[in-house]
């Protein structure tokens, strides 16, 4: 295979299999990769997140199996779709009898429909690598006017050394449908892996999608997520992102609201320890009037961890009576931890109600002393305050099984009880 030595991207993908499946989307992505480069911190969108040392590595795309039992969510009663290193693991997966949804391979997605839908949306080098070299993924249809009988859990596991997972998923919530999706990311016997995932979807008129996303990979994993959803009129989209794992995590979450009376909600809780780097970049693009959006991200950063938040809300000229709320709050538990927070509003309409705010602080020493003076140990006092701080984000997870799973995770990882 030809390698252009001075192009880092082509060198990066040079050992990846280039499947000949006739997919136009794949071919377009491959073509677009020519002439692309990895972002440096000179690029505004990547100012605080440095990927250079990760993309120098030679990752492998390796199909294998993994023990996924430990990553299942008890009592979720879900369709469970397991991806190990980005490859679908049929044996580990469970698809329940359900006439409200149909679950296909991503290759079965109609490319004409997809290309029309995603016209003019922006790609980046990682989403293009994913689309050019994806090794599998699901295309889920939630059927018209149906409420999915079961949640759909897409479980990703990394297994092995320096493996890269390129899974690509698409969710099509047809008119008036309703579904709950869980995406989770874990690693097992893996070192220095790279999860590069794309999750896209279409929420049609009157449809509703709720996503709970859990990122708990080992603290040497690079996780780059590109998520893109298109909302039609009177639809609802909600995502809760909980991040405790990964060495470097970059969540690129985009929602384009292409109809009136929509509601868009993004919530995030991220907890950094050691030298973790957790970056949430979000965009809500309001093109039509009478929509609401609410965005709330909270971080608790310890040790030398770094948090990045960049939330952009765009209200286009014709989008009147938009109510957009955005907030990012952070607590630093150590002197070595830091957060870069940048809320952005781009408003071209004149009749809107938008608010945004960002705070970075420490736990209230007076409150800790007050609790200690009642006999509560310093550790418990801190934990009570942290739980109080991010508890309202976790309360957005309505699914009790997922919430119990998250509570258990926090107890095991941090000794925090909620």
């Amino acid at each position, binding site marked *: 295979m030809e390698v252009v030595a001075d192009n880092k991207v082509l060198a990066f993908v040079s050992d990846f299999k280039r499947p000949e499946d006739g997919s136009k989307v794949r071919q377009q992505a491959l073509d677009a990769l020519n002439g692309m480069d990895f972002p440096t911190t000179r690029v505004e969108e990547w100012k605080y997140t440095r990927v250079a040392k990760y993309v120098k590595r030679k990752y492998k795309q390796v199909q294998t199996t993994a023990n996924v039992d430990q990553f299942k969510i008890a009592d979720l009663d879900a369709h469970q779709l397991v991806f190990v290193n980005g490859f679908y693991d049929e044996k580990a997966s469970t698809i329940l009898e359900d006439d409200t949804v149909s679950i296909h391979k991503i290759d079965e997605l109609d490319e004409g429909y997809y290309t029309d839908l995603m016209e003019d949306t922006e790609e980046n080098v990682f989403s293009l690598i994913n689309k050019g070299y994806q090794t599998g993924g699901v295309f889920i249809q939630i059927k018209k006017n149906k409420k999915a009988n079961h949640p759909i859990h897409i479980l990703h596991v990394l297994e092995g050394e320096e493996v890269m997972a390129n899974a690509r998923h698409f969710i099509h919530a047809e008119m008036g449908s309703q579904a709950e999706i869980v995406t989770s990311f874990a690693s097992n016997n893996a070192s220095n892996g790279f999860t590069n995932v794309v999750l896209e979807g279409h929420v049609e008129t009157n449809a509703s999608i709720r996503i709970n996303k859990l990122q708990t990979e080992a603290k040497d994993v690079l996780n780059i997520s590109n998520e893109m959803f298109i909302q039609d009129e009177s639809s609802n989209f909600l995502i809760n992102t909980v991040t405790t794992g990964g060495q470097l995590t970059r969540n690129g979450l985009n929602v384009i609201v292409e109809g009136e009376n929509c509601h868009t909600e993004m919530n995030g809780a991220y907890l950094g320890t050691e030298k973790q780097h957790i970056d949430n970049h979000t965009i809500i693009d309001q093109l039509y009037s009478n929509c609401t959006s609410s965005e709330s991200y909270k971080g608790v950063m310890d040790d030398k961890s770094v948090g990045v938040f960049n939330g952009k809300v765009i209200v286009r000229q014709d989008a009147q009576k938009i109510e957009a709320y955005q907030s990012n709050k952070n607590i630093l538990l150590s002197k070595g931890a830091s957060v870069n927070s940048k809320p952005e509003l781009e408003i071209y309409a004149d009749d809107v109600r938008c608010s945004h705010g960002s705070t970075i602080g420490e736990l*209230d*020493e*007076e*409150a800790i*002393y*007050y*609790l*200690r*003076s*009642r*006999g*509560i*140990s*310093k550790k*418990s*006092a801190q934990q*009570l*305050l942290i*739980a*109080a*701080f991010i*508890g*309202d984000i976790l309360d957005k997870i309505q699914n009790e099984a997922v919430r119990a799973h998250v509570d258990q995770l926090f107890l095991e990882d941090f000794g925090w009880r909620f």
Partner: protein
Amino acid sequence: MLTIKNLHASVEEGAEILKGLDLEVKAGEVHAIMGPNGSGKSTLASVLAGKDGYEVTEGSVKFADTDLLELDAEDRAKEGMFLAFQYPVEIPGVSNVNFLRTAMNEIREYRKEDKLSAKDFLAKVKEASALVELDNKLASRAVNVGFSGGEKKRNEIFQMAMLEPKLAILDETDSGLDIDALRIVSEGVNKLRSKDNAIILITHYQRLLEYIQPDFVHVLNDGKIIKTGDKNLALELEEKGYDWINEEIAQ
């Protein structure tokens, strides 16, 4: 119960505020410590409760059988000390009952006692909130958030009733209270008085002492107790002000 000997304390890297304070408090007694602004009243409360930012440079404090100054703030509480704050802290997101349950469980664990059952705990919450006429709803709300000044002080006494301390220090509990709230708080404290516990009232004014009758009144000035008497001393102070004592001592 509490023996303070020659206590000297300063704010960290700052001026000395307590300059050789002696005090002996026995079970069943109520002591009032009065004094003008800046005399060291609140510093005494903070040093006894174990607040960071103060340095004890000399002297000793014995509480029950422990060297109090060796204990962390939480362990002082576990040994049976309670401080009602002059300015109770608001803690958003932490409910009053959740925090008290945590506190009581940790205290019981420290004392090697069994955990309180949920039923007994709730019964106690009901009883203690009735004592200070604290609305049941406030008990389940976030600690002091959105409470009025009077509600905050009543919440302090509510917590005192829950924790049943051996020694309670009430730091300016009367400040900012209207007559009704003062009466409620005082009646609550009076009901909590027993032969087994002791109370130290730190106050600027005599009016609290009309409701809670002290066995001893001490006058604190410039970091020392300069005069001790019975409840009549408080009346005399109210009438003549603090300067009178200074003059008397000077003579």
